[in-house]
């Protein structure tokens, strides 16, 4: 197993090199003039277009420009993003924690409800509970998350006024950026606890509710399905019959015996699901005005802010690759039947 992990770790830089090159090459489909125009803020500067192209070497070959970009990226410089009005590296540092916070809360919901509903469906196989849960999972899987997000907002924000979009309220904004509030991790839920500020803590949680529920929708279905089929498989095994014959209560059989073994595929699946959420955050953050890396990426894409688009896509790809690797390692760790040679 160690050999497999080492091999994957060695492949990681190569895959990242390929992915960043692909993304960089894509931005080169725009003509040098259009790329140079991004550096120009005032129409009166148009005359210096050629100068900009010369200065930044926008006419060089793709490889030359890419190696220059890569060299800067290693130094932690990803260029300047006019959309965020700051260097891309700073923007990533500022926006990424919000996305991670959202993804972690979502994942906790997905795992909890996925396991619970999966077990419920398996225990009641072919009864109405099972059909209802399966209908629920295929519906949540089919509902477009931008529609779900807007409907939730319309109802819980527009009609009831319970949850507002954004990451925190105006009052919290003043507290967070005021004196006496230390920024430890960038994760607002954790920072507020470390600062012993419960107002900000509950405010941050409240703003996470709707985005997290929306983001859940696409991930529930697979979780429920895997838990259900894995649970059904375990429930049919001999040790479960033995436990029942011993006179154990059905709940003990379900949760202590079968449940413990059935949960293994779910653990590995959650690694993959966590990574998949990254794509969904793009839309959810846009709907809820949640200042994460996804909405930063969308803003950059809409403004054709090339440095921003590149920085965003590379960071997301990096997280994606790391997450997939972690999921694979989890997989071999928990399922000894699988061996990579």
């Amino acid at each position, binding site marked *: 197993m160690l050999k497999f992990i080492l091999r994957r770790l060695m492949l990681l830089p190569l*895959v*990242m090199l*390929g*992915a960043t090159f*692909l*993304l960089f090459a*894509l*931005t080169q*489909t*725009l003509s040098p003039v259009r790329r140079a125009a991004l550096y120009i803020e005032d129409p009166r500067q148009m005359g210096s277009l050629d100068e900009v192209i010369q200065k930044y070497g926008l006419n060089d070959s793709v490889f030359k420009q890419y190696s220059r970009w890569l060299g800067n990226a290693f130094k932690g410089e990803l260029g300047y993003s006019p959309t965020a009005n700051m260097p891309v590296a700073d923007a990533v540092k500022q926006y990424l924690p919000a996305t991670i916070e959202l993804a972690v809360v979502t994942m906790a919901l997905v795992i909890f409800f996925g396991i619970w509903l999966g077990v419920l469906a398996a225990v009641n196989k072919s009864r109405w509970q099972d059909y209802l849960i*399966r209908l629920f999972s*295929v*519906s949540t*899987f*089919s*509902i*477009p*998350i*931008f*529609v779900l997000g*807007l*409907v939730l*907002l*319309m*109802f819980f*924000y*527009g*009609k009831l006024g319970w949850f507002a979009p954004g990451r925190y309220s105006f009052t919290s904004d003043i507290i967070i950026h005021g004196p006496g509030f230390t920024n430890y991790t960038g994760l607002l839920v954790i920072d507020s606890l470390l600062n012993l500020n419960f107002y900000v803590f509950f405010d941050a949680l409240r703003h996470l509710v709707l985005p997290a529920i929306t983001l859940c929708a696409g991930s529930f279905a697979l979780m429920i399905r895997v838990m259900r089929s894995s649970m059904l498989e375990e429930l049919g095994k001999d040790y479960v019959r033995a436990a029942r014959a011993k006179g154990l209560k059905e709940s003990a059989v379900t949760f202590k015996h079968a449940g413990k073994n059935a949960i293994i595929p779910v653990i590995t699946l959650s690694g993959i699901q966590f*990574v*998949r959420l*990254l*794509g*969904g955050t*793009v*839309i959810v953050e*846009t*709907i809820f005005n949640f200042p994460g890396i996804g909405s930063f*990426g*969308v803003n950059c*894409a*809409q403004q*054709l802010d090339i440095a921003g*688009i590149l920085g*965003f*896509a590379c960071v*997301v*790809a990096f997280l*994606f*690759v790391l997450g997939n690797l972690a999921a694979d390692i989890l997989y071999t760790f928990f399922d000894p039947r699988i061996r990579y040679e």
Partner: protein
Amino acid sequence: MNKTIFAKILRSRSALAGLTLVIFFAAVAALTPVICPPQNYNPYQVPQAGYNVAPVPPNAQNIFGTTESQYDIFYAVVWGARMAFKVGISVVFFALVLGIIIGGTAAYAGGWVDEILMRITDIIFAIPGMVLAMVIAALLGPEIKNMIIALTAVSWPSYARLIRGDILSVKQRDFVAAARVYGASGPRIFLKHILPNSIYPSIIVASLDIGYIVLTASSLSFLGLGSPPGTADWGQLVAMSRNWILGTAQNPLAYAHAILIPGGALFLFVLGWNLLGDALRDILDPRQS
């Protein structure tokens, strides 16, 4: 299609529901010009009933009401069905062709060609599909053609992998050996014996992806990176209603129709394909029977 598979679909309630939904949308898409005669030079351009900004609820003139800038929702939803099929089928077709060519080349050639082609698919898999599609669509500009290109670019690698795997397993079968013994040439064996026997599963899988592809396409349009403004496209209709989630002071849900109608159409479309796909997967899975 196999007769028994079809019989099984008719017996499963959820598969039947899925099939009904898909056939319904297909019928709407096929009959679009009859249901809603085109009013512009470009039929996908939705007509506007005035210059008022706020959406108007369903009424006698616009049976589904209008959305922002008085775009007629009924017209947009009906032509949106045609658009969904247009985008879904084009993407599946182009991605399959690319997948067959690249996956087939990799499996047929083997060695370093295979290695390089498969590493390229690895690289594309290293970027979340939605993000890569977003980047490509943003760089090419908001146009239907570009949206199809972006979605094709992110979809073909999975088909290429699937087809490569199928070809490699078919290659081992006895009838291929028999053809070789018979003296058939390499390309002939590949085109006449291996390929026809290995691409059908992929074609079925790919065609069931239409729901997912239309969902991604609508997401792009929702973000303003898909179709140009005013196009009959469900994702864009939902995007237009985004500014109107708050309603009026008296009635907070005054503009709900602008989200629920196009959103509902998209939901039912995707649901139909997913129900059908799930059922077909269960039926084709040998472990289930």
